Every structure is written in structure tokens, then in C-alpha cells.
């Protein structure tokens, strides 16, 4: 019962943030240089068309009224029209969601797997060479440019060795996976260092906790102390990180999608910035914000369910 009210409270808290997001995206369009109507209809449109568009987006009214027209349009699914693609923005964006979800989802899983292995190896052999190597990797990895790493991986494993396709997304699940292996590895190499740092520190901290001493003195085998107590506890401590990490991974996905020509949100975003396709930029900014608060919300709710101390 208490948990239900916590969930409701959490949802209620999101309202001001959602309003804030809509104001920011609205201001983005306001800041565009030049007459926005010309942007929509092109430089040679007749006066009647200009008038009707001006009315549709409320551009002949005060700024505050324009904001509410914008909000109404967004809520009704009218996100404007792409100048480059000549299609409605919302549909265009939604068609690009699946590749990005594949990319971020798989990249997160691979990053977590790599980070867990490295962190456990390092924490169990603290200050030995395994640990030193993992720490070096986690420091160097922080400064790896993702777009460069993607390029180098595709040079070696696609252009030279021909093991994987260099670009694209393919057709069907198996083909998707084949195309996404190199982008996933890129994400994992860039993300794992951040995860490893936190996981290693928590594992080492928990290994020295009082409850571990107690279990040892009770005669529990090291193995079960680690697997049943230290490990789950450390995961729980790091659960809140998952939201931040997911959002960060989305950022990396945006950067490497153009490198591997994955037809997702990131490629569309970079492309629309280069071609100054403002309504697509505005729409994507909205979508990215929705994905961000969605990820944070899911993680919050998850820790509410998993962690007995909450609620």
C-alpha cells in the first residue's frame, strides 16, 4: 500500500519536469533565426499558404499563446513536417526508434557483462596484476573517443578482416545482430570503464563489511559469502546508476550511429542538424527527453520493487 503511494508520488513529481521539457523544446524553435513560416513552406510559397500555416501554428499570436498552441499540437501528434524528408516528423521519428533501441539495449547488456567480469576479477585480486590492468583500462577508457573507436573497429573487423558488415542495419533479427556486433562492442568498451569503477569500489567495500566478517567467523565458505551476500548487495548499491548509464549509452549511440550508418534516432539527429531540419531537431530533442525520464523512472520503480529498504 505504502509502495503504491510512493509510485504515485513519483509520477506526480514528473509533471513539472515534463512542463519544463516542453518549454525548452518550444524555446529551441523560438530561437531559430529567420521567419519560421518560410522554413515550413519554403521561400516561394503564395501568401494564402503562408497565412494558413501562420494560423495553424498560432504564429500570429503572442508568445504565451504560441506555447499553448505548440503544446496542444505536440499532445495531438502534430510535430510539424520534416523539410528534408517531406513527411510528418512524429512518424519519421517513430520509424527510427527500433534500431536505436536494439543498439542501446544490446550495448547495455554487453557493457554490464564485461564490467561485471572485470570488476569481480579486480576486486577478488585487489592490487594484483589483474586489478592493476582493470584499473588502467578504466582510466584509459574514460577518454576513448567513441566515434574513433567505432571507425577503428570497422576498419579492422569489417574492411580488413571482413567478419562483420561495416555499416547498416540489415533485415531480420539475425542480420540485425550481425550488423550491430561492432557498434555493441564500441559501446561496451566505452561504457564498461565507468561501470567498472563503481562496481569495483563497491565490491571491495562490501568485502570488508562487518557482515562478511561475521559470516567468515561463522565458517561460511568464501564462495557462498561472495555469491549470496557480497555480490547481490553490491548490485543493489549500484542499481541507481543504471538510469544514468542508460542515458549515457543513448548519448554514445547518437555519436556512433552515423559512423556505422545505423538508421536510428542518432543518425537522424546528426543528419537533421547538418541539414538544418529544425522540426526534426525539435521532435528528437523531445523524444530523447522522454526516453531519459522514462529510463530514470523505470530504474526508480525497479529499486522500489527490489530494495526492501525503500518504502
Amino acid at each position, binding site marked *: 500500500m505504502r509502495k503504491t503511494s510512493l509510485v504515485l508520488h513519483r509520477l506526480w513529481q514528473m509533471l*513539472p519536469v515534463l512542463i519544463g521539457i516542453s518549454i525548452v523544446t518550444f524555446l529551441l524553435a523560438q530561437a531559430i533565426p529567420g521567419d519560421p513560416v518560410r522554413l515550413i513552406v519554403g521561400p516561394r510559397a503564395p501568401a494564402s499558404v503562408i497565412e494558413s500555416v501562420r494560423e495553424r501554428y498560432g504564429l500570429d499570436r503572442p508568445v504565451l499563446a504560441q506555447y499553448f498552441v505548440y503544446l496542444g499540437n505536440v499532445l495531438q501528434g502534430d510535430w510539424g513536417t520534416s523539410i528534408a524528408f517531406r513527411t510528418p516528423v512524429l512518424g519519421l521519428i517513430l520509424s527510427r526508434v527500433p534500431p536505436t533501441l536494439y543498439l542501446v539495449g544490446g550495448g547495455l547488456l554487453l557493457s554490464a557483462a564485461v564490467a561485471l567480469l572485470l570488476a569481480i576479477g579486480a576486486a577478488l585480486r585487489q592490487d594484483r596484476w589483474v586489478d592493476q590492468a582493470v584499473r588502467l583500462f578504466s582510466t584509459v577508457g574514460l577518454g576513448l*573517443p567513441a566515434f574513433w573507436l567505432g571507425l577503428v573497429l570497422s576498419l579492422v573487423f569489417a574492411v580488413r578482416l571482413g567478419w562483420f558488415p561495416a555499416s547498416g542495419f540489415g533485415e531480420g533479427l539475425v542480420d540485425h545482430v550481425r550488423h550491430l556486433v561492432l557498434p555493441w562492442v564500441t559501446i561496451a568498451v566505452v561504457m564498461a570503464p565507468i561501470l567498472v569503477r563503481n562496481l569495483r569500489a563497491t565490491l571491495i567495500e562490501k568485502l570488508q563489511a562487518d557482515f562478511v566478517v561475521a559470516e567468515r567467523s561463522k565458517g561460511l565458505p568464501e564462495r557462498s559469502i561472495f555469491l549470496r551476500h557480497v555480490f547481490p548487495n553490491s548490485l543493489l548499491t549500484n542499481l541507481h546508476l543504471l538510469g544514468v548509464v542508460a542515458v549515457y549509452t543513448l548519448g554514445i549511440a547518437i555519436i556512433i550511429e552515423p559512423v556505422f550508418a545505423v538508421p536510428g534516432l542518432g543518425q537522424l539527429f546528426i543528419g537533421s542538424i547538418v541539414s*538544418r531540419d529544425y522540426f526534426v531537431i525539435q521532435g528528437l530533442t523531445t523524444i530523447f*527527453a522522454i526516453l531519459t525520464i522514462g529510463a530514470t523512472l523505470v530504474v526508480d520503480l525497479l529499486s522500489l520493487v527490489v530494495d526492501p529498504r525503500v518504502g
Partner: protein
Amino acid sequence: MMAEREIAVTVEVGRPRVRFSRLTVAGAVIVTAWVAVAMLAPLLAPYDPDATDLRAFLQAPGSPGHLLGTDHLGRDVLSRIVYGTRIDLSMGVIGVMAPFLIGVALGVVSGYSGGLVDTVLMRLVDVALAFPFLVLVLAIVAILGPGLTNYYVALAIVAWVPYCRLVRAETLVLKRSEFVESARLLGLSHVAIMRRHILPNAITPAAVFVVTDIVLTILLGSGLSFFGLGAQPPTAEWGRMIAEGQNFLSQGWWISVFPGIALILLTLGFSLLGDGLAKQLRVRA
């Protein structure tokens, strides 16, 4: 509590035996080396970085006169990397300045005043954090137009958030301490208390974060340049160079690969320095 802190400071100042960890030293050496490369670029670079030589294009690394090879226009890759240091290094340092100043100022004011000011600022922070950082920067650059100056403007608009949060958290603790209480009883103005008593004590975590933030700023800036939204051609900038080599990956891998290695070595210096300082000053990185 405060008495202890002050004694500790005098001891450290009195005896110049502050031992820097090996991490910090290694980081400082690498960063200093890069600063030297940037300053001595005309002496170190064997060629003019923008001089094209169409008789010597796509020369492999190690060919006579071109240690790291030449690009598709015959420009010497080593010379371009050496001159690029100036852009990429200063990009990191310039990029963090405005966010640091704005964030620290807002953090102190927000934490110290509390009330409506604090509420409004924190809602602003919530909204900024609702976007992936990269998306906000890219969206602002999209509106303002490409170029490094606009990148710095975008950073000033959005990158102050982490500094503000760090300093605000410290300020909230300091505000309740006895020495701030006494300062207030002595009749010091709020501005004086914030400036002379809160700020110096609250700034350490933010100052350490600057070093880490330089890494992020360089990575994002070179990424922007890679997509043609940052440094404009023919500027010798590492992200740009990586982009220019992209079309020649199979004939001339070195055009893209070496600038990337330079980026890694530059960011490594700041990462080591940041880690070392965080450990030394007992700040959670």
C-alpha cells in the same frame, strides 16, 4: 570541526611535504608535455600543417620525411597533429571555464539562500537533467550554427549543472556550521559570508571535477568537429582529421588512426590527474 581543519591546513603549508601520488604526477607530466607541444608547435612540426603537396599524397607512415604519413591532400599528418594540439587542448580548457564559474556561483547562492531561489534553480537543474547532455549541446549548436565559439556558448548554457550541484551540496552543510554562525553574529553581510567563508570551503569538489570535465569537453568537442559542427576546415583539429580520413580508411588508415591516439593520450593525462587529485583531496569522483 573547523578548528581541526584549520590546523591541518597550517601543517600542510608549513611543511612542504605534500606527497603527490604517482597517478597525479604521471597525469601532470603528460598534461605538461602536451602544453609544451602546443606552445612549441612551430619548432616541433616538420611541415606547415596546411601545406598541401599533391606529389606526396597518401604516403604511408615511415616514408621519407613523413614519420606519420600524409593525408589525401599530401599534408603531413604529424605536423597537423602537433598543430591540432593547440585547438584540442585549448578547447578543453576554454570549454570548462564558463560552466565552472556559473555553476559555482549559482551553487553557493542556491544553497546559501534556500527558499524560492533554491527551488527555482533546482527545478531548472531537474529539467536540464531530463535531457541527455549531448542532445542539449547538439540542439543548441544546431540553432546557433556550427563552430567552436557556439560550442562554448552551448556549454555555458547547459554544462554548469554538475558544478552547481556539487557546490550546493557542500554549501548546505557549511551553512549550518559554527564558523558561519559566528560570522553572521559578527555582523558580516550575506555576500561577504558567501564569498569569504562558504566559497573557499565549498569549491574543492567542483575544482577536482574541472579536470574530469576537461576530458568530457575535449571528447564532445572533437566529436562535434568530427560531424562538421565544431572546428571548420582546413583547421588542423583532431576530430576533423579523423573525419577527413574516414573516406580513405582502406587506402590510408593512418590519417584517422593517429589523431585518435593523440586524443587518447591527451585525455589520459587529464584522467590520471583528476583521479589522483580526487584521491588526494578525498573527494568522491
